[in-house]
């Protein structure tokens, strides 16, 4: 009895102290990590999507509140004067967790400018091609908001990467989520930009 009690007490104490310590470190590094993600993950994706914008999408970013989250919106003024916005969505169910997808959508044409994978923990050489090899994500270019962006295997229009169906599906989920989000947020976005 005494032994069992000591096992329970020691493990509980150890786990609680560890939990507390981690919470402290997490809240201490949170802001810096956010900055680093913006600098090393989002910025390259945005620069690649908005290669010829005339403004600075990173500086002009703003947040929009939805029911359950706050979304960072990066506005881009295209060379021909039209406006586009980029924002990130998370595709659930990748091979190594959620996959972040930065999606740019033209406000005038209601169509995708393009999409880039930002954060992921997919298998190097297989799922990681979603980020490194632009062939897969370039399928999203110029797709309209009504296009079914699911995989062809799921009656959609996107070809999966061979050997990485799970990853491909998670990316399409993020893209579809971006379509819905855009439809809901468009009035808000236009109000904010003007």
């Amino acid at each position: 009895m005494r032994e069992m009690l000591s096992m329970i007490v020691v493990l509980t104490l150890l786990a609680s102290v560890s939990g507390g310590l981690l919470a402290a470190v997490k809240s201490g590094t949170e802001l810096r990590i956010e900055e680093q993600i913006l600098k090393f993950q989002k910025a390259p994706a945005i620069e690649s999507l908005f290669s010829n914008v005339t403004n600075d999408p990173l500086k002009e970013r703003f947040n929009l509140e939805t029911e359950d989250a706050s979304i960072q919106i990066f506005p881009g003024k295209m060379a021909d004067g039209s406006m586009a916005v980029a924002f990130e969505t998370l595709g659930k169910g990748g091979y190594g967790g959620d996959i972040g997808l930065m999606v740019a959508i033209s406000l005038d044409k209601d169509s995708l400018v393009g999409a880039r994978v930002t954060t992921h923990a997919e298998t190097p050489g297989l799922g990681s091609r979603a980020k490194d090899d632009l062939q897969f994500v370039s399928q999203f270019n110029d797709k309209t908001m009504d296009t079914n962006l699911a995989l062809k295997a799921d009656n959609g229009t996107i070809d999966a990467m061979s050997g990485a169906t799970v990853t491909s599906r998670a990316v399409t989920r993020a893209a579809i989520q971006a379509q819905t989000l855009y439809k809901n947020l468009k009035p808000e976005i236009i109000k904010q930009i003007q």
Partner: protein
Amino acid sequence: MAQSLAKEFTKGLWAEIPPFRLVLGLCPTLAVTKSVENGIGMGLATTFVLVFSNLLISLLRNVIPTKVRIACYIVIIATFVTIVELVMQAFTYPLFLKLGIFIPLIVVNCIVLGRAEAFASKNNPVLAVADGLGIGIGFTLSLASLGAVREILGAGTITIWGGNPVFDITTWYQPFTYMVEAPGAFAALGLMLAGMNLISKK
């Protein structure tokens, strides 16, 4: 005391150097040593975890009940690994991206758990820290040298912390990418192990 302290520290540098002598922790060894930089990063992260988990486990060695000791060790190790992960994300983000999944995997690195079980749980905190530091530095040196061999043969250059290569032989040497791929890791590790055996045999 001072003598045994030095002994515990230096054994990790040659006599029990991981992963060559203490053939543990091969997963990160083979996976991340594509370059010197990755090797050093992984080695330092593991050293941090080793030193602090050894210290804490040694301090608590009379408190932790034997039957749940492994669970306790894992909680302690996992805590330090998560701290390393968060700190790396906050301060060395590009390195964190390269090492990726192998940072959280330090939790199940047999070197860390092995030192906890075989050494820290039986010795005083000072010796335990010396042991952790020695093994950790040994691991870092191994990973860095393995990374150097693979990077030189596979890429022909050595680049540390971005910028220009500090070492470049591509003018007369044709790199073969086999060495930076996974099979090259086995070949390089095997050859280095053979070399070490040859030297220590004399």
